């Protein structure tokens, strides 16, 4: 006996599916087709060039450099976010007066638009009137206020953007880990304590293994989001650093190379698809039935 008939189920599914088909599936299909052509910059005439765009992407630095930057961004940002998030979670999982309030407030950066985060950090990293250099100078670490020009140097600019990203999303990691830690069976921890385990032993041998699924899920999700970043890079360091999202946008909109940009976008999407299929199996395998 079904609650809702099959036909109704279909009706339930259809409107959403139509929306998604129109704005998500259709663009991908269109880009897939476009990627095999070259477009004249003036007349928009198409010339079929097979896989040339893809070959170019994998051999030309216009794609390889953003690819490298994106990888660095993802690896560095997520590593730090995981470590810091875990540290914060361990501190805040304890019960103390005001802990709830502190946890709530820590979520604040998460609510800030990535764009605004980028703009704020851009202001802070400015070497002339940025507060970061000012503080470093007050602490005696820097000689003059513009000894480190964060946003002027390609490498430093990438680090600056990573910092903005870390600030924005560590709360997310903290939240995930916190939830995980809180769901650990108290009795296990008690037993370990009775056996004389100290903080670190209990940490590594009990807590981490217990929340490993959470850690892995969080890392996977974050890696995908980090690879997708657009707003922060665009508004903070667009001139110094290119990542795949921004290069696709620029190639398409500013340089008018529709075919090439479409190919890059397809490669990008393919990465995500494969990554999701491989690493996020947890999410789409409904094997945990009947929770």
């Amino acid at each position: 006996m079904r609650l809702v008939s099959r036909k109704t189920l279909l009706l339930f599914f259809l409107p959403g599916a139509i929306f998604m088909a129109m704005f998500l599936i259709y663009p991908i299909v269109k880009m897939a087709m476009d990627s095999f052509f070259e477009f004249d910059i003036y007349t928009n005439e198409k010339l079929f060039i097979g896989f040339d765009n893809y070959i170019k992407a994998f051999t030309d630095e216009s794609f390889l450099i953003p690819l490298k930057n994106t990888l660095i961004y993802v690896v560095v940002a997520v590593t730090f976010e995981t470590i810091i998030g875990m540290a914060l979670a361990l501190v805040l999982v304890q019960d103390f007066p005001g802990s709830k309030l502190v946890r709530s407030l820590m979520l604040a950066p998460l609510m800030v638009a990535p764009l605004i985060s980028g703009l704020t950090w851009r202001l802070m990293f400015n070497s002339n009137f940025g507060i970061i250099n000012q503080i470093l100078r007050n602490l005696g670490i820097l000689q003059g206020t513009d000894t480190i020009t964060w946003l002027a140097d390609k490498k430093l600019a990438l680090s600056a953007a990573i910092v903005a990203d870390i600030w924005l999303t560590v709360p997310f990691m903290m939240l995930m880990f916190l939830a995980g830690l809180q769901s650990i069976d108290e009795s296990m921890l008690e037993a370990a304590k009775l056996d004389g385990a100290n903080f670190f032993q209990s940490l590594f041998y009990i807590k981490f293994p217990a929340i490993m699924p959470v850690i892995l899920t969080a890392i996977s999700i974050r890696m995908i989001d980090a690879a997708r970043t657009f707003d922060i890079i665009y508004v903070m360091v667009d001139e110094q650093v290119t990542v795949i999202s921004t290069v696709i946008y620029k190639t398409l909109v500013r340089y008018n190379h529709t075919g090439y940009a479409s190919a890059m976008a397809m490669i990008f999407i393919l990465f995500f698809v494969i990554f999701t299929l491989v690493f996020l199996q947890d999410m789409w395998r409904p094997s945990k039935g009947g929770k």
Partner: protein
Amino acid sequence: MKNNVKRNLVIVLAVFLLGFWLFPYLYLISSAFKPGQEVFSTPVKFFPKKLSLESFSTMFERMPFFKYIFNSLSAALLSTFIAVFLGALSAYAIARATGKKLTMLLLVIVLMMKMIPISSIAVPIYEIVMDLGIYDTRLALVIVYAALNIPFVIWMMISFYSSIPISIDEAAAIDGASNFATFRKVILPIVMPGISSAAIFTLFLSLNDFLIALLLTSVEAKTFTVAISEFVNSYNYDLGPMMAGAFLYTFPIILISLFAQKYIVSGMTSGSIK
């Protein structure tokens, strides 16, 4: 005794970490309340030398504040409603679909769509919007935001539905009633927390969007995020008003999030904590 010392230490540490982490946001606030020139005068200080609302007034002068806020808000609210409504329905359909293989396939597709980077499909979306003749309208924002967020809602709701045993469905269907009303009366109340979480999340996602609004709006439907990014250009270096605007936009959102804590937390951790 020892426990008390430890606890105090933890409190101090927590407060310190909190302050450290909130620093950038506090700096945003302090910059908003500084007189315009002070924002980028050297040497720069954290606390304003004197509190001033100058940046706010400049901001109100330079842009139609309420119009842009209205655009952002209305587009976000409407699209969220549509996304949550359609998403909740679709998710139920997927969760109750016959055949594990079908469910899995649909889940994979939905998950994939959730993960797609927006910057790669932004321009084709722009062209669709153009073809429909709705460029620079709030309507365009509403339907695009809704479309982009439906996968997210579905994904979030699936785990809620999955945790409802089929027996409940069957019990409610005993007298053969099989329509939307029954669904609404029986299932929805159970997953209400999930819906609330999804709604809040989708709302924030839409409010904080930049790229889509950048491409799809021009004068009439411009959203606040796009407007703020335009404050620094080659003629004006208006950092003060920009921070003022940023403050006015983010502060209410943060306040709301403090009250909606429960939903945000459960939303984020749904599906990952079994």
